[in-house]
């Protein structure tokens, strides 16, 4: 009965937060105009970044160096801060440190009052958003004009940025036209170039008459006390050159040691943000230059904001959130962000990285409320130029939040998903029959919260592990197969194909002691369960490695856990050893091929489409299966799609707006594009991607291991 009751400690906070999120999800899904704009903008962002980075000969070296710089900068923050302040002061800059938002606001207001300012022009800054800077200055009776076009649109619409670097990404041309027409009291044509020209005209006057200019900073350089501002529109140049007083408000994490570091990070930032080598303008400024109008030196102020950053820095898990360059790549690639944007998936800071930043600069409750939109696909970390472990941070936010306020019953149920699969397998084929009955499905929907529209996989009592017990394996290479629950209890044919292909290539296979990966629990923030599974598996697999085995997995999530997640969670040498010896089947086979030791099959397969699962992308940044099948001459075409299919493990099984509806909205583009490819079969390694694609397209989906095994002569 425990699954049928809400947790007794579920408090009002989480219940209300859940309701708020669900109503935002409902509104977001219904807003088709916004969804079209968002998807186009985010997909093109990801595409540009991926393409540019892939073409870079020194990609790995660049990203490794970018991470090293931020790591060192945060380790030595106190020292860098001191140097920065001293250098900037020696150039005549007024530098102050603000411990929190209120202090920063006070400092800005007093500078504005001292300057007797009537008009303030601002360039876009997330740090400004963090402390509601514009709103506070306006409340003090001073007129503020945002000058970045996107931010200006947001100001006129009285909203918050919907994306880290493209604040108005969610708005259509029509909406922007209406906004400007209303603001200017005249009919504006629905044409972006003309709207831009009109905005230029009206903002030009503001630049020329402003008393104070406010900016953020992308980097602050300790060796010289200079700040770096990266823009495309050129508004940052006018904000900093025309007003007699300028103020830069930025977080302490922006301080880095040297100009050399700044140039490296600049490259990583612009590549990840826009797939470009550099932006239109990079302004490096130190000290107040002579003003054009008067010849007097400009008054320059730096306000360095802490506001939770020191606490973040002391937290071993969250510290690396401070490496964030604000490129927005995690916003662009995130499957749920693409549907909802930052007004739903965001508090002030948007998208995946917004969750940890919200926890420290706002509150845990604000972060916990949006955290369920993370479906643990892992793509944000993969897209991040700093490789920030955003997935683990979000899981920790979920954990702390549910420990404080309680866990939803459906999530608690799904954390124990493995015991359900075992039960269904034991009861098969009766369970299969039951799970297909509409009445039973409706009951499951009402009681457990599992959506009746989502088909369950077929379960079998003839599991792979049972079959393997009477199977004799031989070969000169030793391999240990980490079997996933699906290949064991739903589709043992996958497991048999894996074993078959390995044995055909002179590998002796054995199945070591193991439990389910623990990933379903991770999705809902039950890190204790995940850690327990990780410890068990690492302990036994490490033993296998000691005995000379390489570990093979055929499910992307399993590979992701072994190679990526377990070492991050456990941090032990044992976990790292297991990671180093673990391989996705196709990566292992490619390795054999590179040593000219792979037996090539003789038969050819029929043309197929291919979908790359997120967890494979996260670990390898490519598909080994696709590469190998192509080497074998197969006609396999990857679908033009660069994010998650939407099902995300158990997420897509949850009722309505809690899971199913969102998962199907995420997958929409994938379904359309696969159907348009006109092929009979789709290949993908992931069992859940398979369920999602079959459900969304009615196409036949098979595991590439099964496809490959069918090509070998038996």
């Amino acid at each position: 009965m425990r699954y049928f009751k809400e947790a007794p400690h579920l408090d009002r906070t989480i219940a209300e937060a859940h309701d708020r999120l669900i109503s935002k999800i409902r509104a977001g899904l219904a807003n088709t105009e916004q969804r079209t704009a968002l998807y186009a903008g985010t997909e093109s962002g990801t595409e540009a970044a991926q393409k540019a980075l892939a073409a870079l000969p020194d990609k790995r070296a660049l990203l490794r160096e970018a991470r090293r710089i931020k790591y060192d900068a945060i380790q030595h923050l106190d020292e860098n801060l001191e140097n920065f302040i001293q250098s900037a002061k020696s150039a005549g800059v007024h530098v102050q440190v603000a411990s929190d938002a209120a202090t920063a606001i006070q400092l800005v207001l007093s500078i504005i009052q001292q300057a007797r300012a009537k008009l303030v022009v601002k360039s876009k800054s997330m740090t400004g958003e963090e402390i509601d800077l514009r709103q506070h200055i306006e409340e003090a009776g001073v007129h503020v004009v945002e000058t970045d076009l996107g931010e200006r649109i947001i100001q006129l619409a009285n909203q918050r940025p919907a994306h880290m670097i493209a604040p108005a990404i969610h708005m259509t041309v029509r909406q922007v036209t209406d906004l400007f027409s209303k603001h200017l009291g005249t009919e504006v044509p629905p044409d972006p170039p003309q709207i831009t020209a009109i905005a230029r005209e009206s903002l030009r006057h503001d630049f020329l008459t402003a008393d104070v200019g406010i900016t953020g900073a992308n980097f602050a350089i300790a060796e010289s006390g200079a700040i770096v501002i990266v823009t495309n529109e050129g508004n940052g140049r006018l904000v900093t050159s025309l007003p007699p007083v300028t103020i830069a408000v930025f977080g302490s994490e922006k301080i880095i040691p040297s100009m050399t570091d700044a140039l490296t990070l600049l490259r990583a930032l612009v590549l990840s943000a826009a797939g470009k080598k550099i932006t239109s303008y990079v302004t490096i400024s130190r000290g107040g230059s002579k003003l054009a109008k008067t010849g007097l030196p400009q008054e320059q102020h730096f306000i360095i904001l802490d506001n939770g950053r020191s606490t973040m820095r002391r937290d071993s898990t969250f510290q690396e959130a401070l490496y964030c360059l604000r490129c927005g790549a995690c916003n662009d690639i995130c499957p749920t962000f693409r549907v909802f944007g930052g007004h739903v998936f965001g508090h002030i800071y948007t998208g995946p990285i917004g969750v940890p930043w919200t926890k420290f600069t706002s509150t845990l409750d604000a972060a916990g409320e949006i955290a369920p939109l993370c479906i643990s696909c892992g793509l944000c970390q993969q897209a991040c130029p700093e490789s920030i472990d955003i997935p683990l941070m979000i899981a920790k936010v979920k954990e702390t939040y549910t420990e404080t306020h309680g866990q939803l019953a459906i999530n608690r149920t799904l954390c124990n998903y493995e015991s359900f699969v075992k039960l269904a397998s034991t009861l098969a084929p009766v369970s299969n029959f039951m799970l297909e009955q509409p009445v039973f499905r409706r009951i499951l929907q009402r009681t457990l919260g599992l959506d009746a529209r989502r088909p369950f996989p077929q379960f079998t009592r003839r599991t792979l592990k049972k079959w393997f017990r009477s199977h004799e394996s031989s070969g000169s290479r030793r391999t240990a197969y980490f079997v996933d629950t699906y290949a064991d209890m739903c589709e043992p044919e996958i497991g048999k194909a894996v074993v078959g292909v390995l044995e055909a290539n002179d590998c002796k296979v054995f199945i070591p002691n193991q439990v389910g990966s623990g990933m379903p629990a991770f999705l809902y923030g039950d890190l204790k369960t995940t850690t327990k599974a990780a410890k068990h598996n690492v302990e036994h697999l490490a033993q296998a490695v000691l005995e000379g085995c390489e570990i093979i997995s055929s499910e992307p999530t399993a590979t992701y856990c072994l190679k990526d997640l377990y070492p991050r969670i456990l941090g032990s040498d044992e976990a790292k050893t297991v990671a180093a010896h673990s391989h996705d089947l196709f990566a292992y086979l490619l390795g054999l091929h590179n040593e000219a030791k792979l037996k090539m099959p003789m038969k050819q397969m029929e043309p197929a489409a291919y979908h790359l699962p997120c967890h494979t992308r996260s670990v390898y940044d490519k598909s080994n299966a696709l590469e190998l099948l192509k080497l074998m001459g197969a006609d396999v075409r990857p679908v033009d799609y660069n994010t998650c299919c939407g099902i995300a493990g158990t997420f897509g099984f949850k009722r309505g707006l809690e899971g199913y509806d969102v998962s199907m909205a995420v997958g929409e583009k994938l379904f359309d594009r696969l159907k348009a490819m006109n092929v009979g079969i789709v290949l993908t390694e992931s069992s859940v991607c398979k369920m999602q694609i079959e459900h969304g397209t009615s196409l036949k989906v098979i595991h590439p291991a099964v496809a490959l095994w069918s090509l070998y002569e038996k």
Partner: protein
Amino acid sequence: MLNSQVTAVKGFFKRLPDLQSASEYVTEIAVARNVKRIVVSDDPTLSEFSAAIVRKGLIEVTSPITLSREDFFASLKIAEIGVSSVDLAVAETGTLIISTSDESNRLVTALPEVHVAIVPRSKLIPSLAEARSYLSQETRSNRAVTLSLISSSSRTSDIGDMVILGVHGPKELHVLLLG
């Protein structure tokens, strides 16, 4: 490389033998656009260039050297073309690096609708990496300084994900490589 980088972002690139031919180029685009006023940054190497345009008598050419501060500022606000020299030009990224300590000079490259940058061959470097020590030294000198790295005309894609040139700064960037 500089050529392809500049034109890739819809900039204009021209190789010219000397300042005289640069002044002809600028006069030509000025006449074609019916331009009345050109501002030139305060750089002794450009005086020959300015003089050549002035001699033609078609267009008013002002620079911080020729006018009082107030008058030059007034002229900056209405000039249609700004002409500047550069301190370095980066071939790999098509970036012009301009160091200023007087905002009059920076605004020559920021306020007018057209920015023409005159780049002597000697200022050309292969990549940004070669600019590191220059940038680092400039920011550690004992005067106030602004380094502008300009790689395209002013651009936005904030409305409907459509690229539009000339938001707040120049709509056109012309790079004239001399020699």
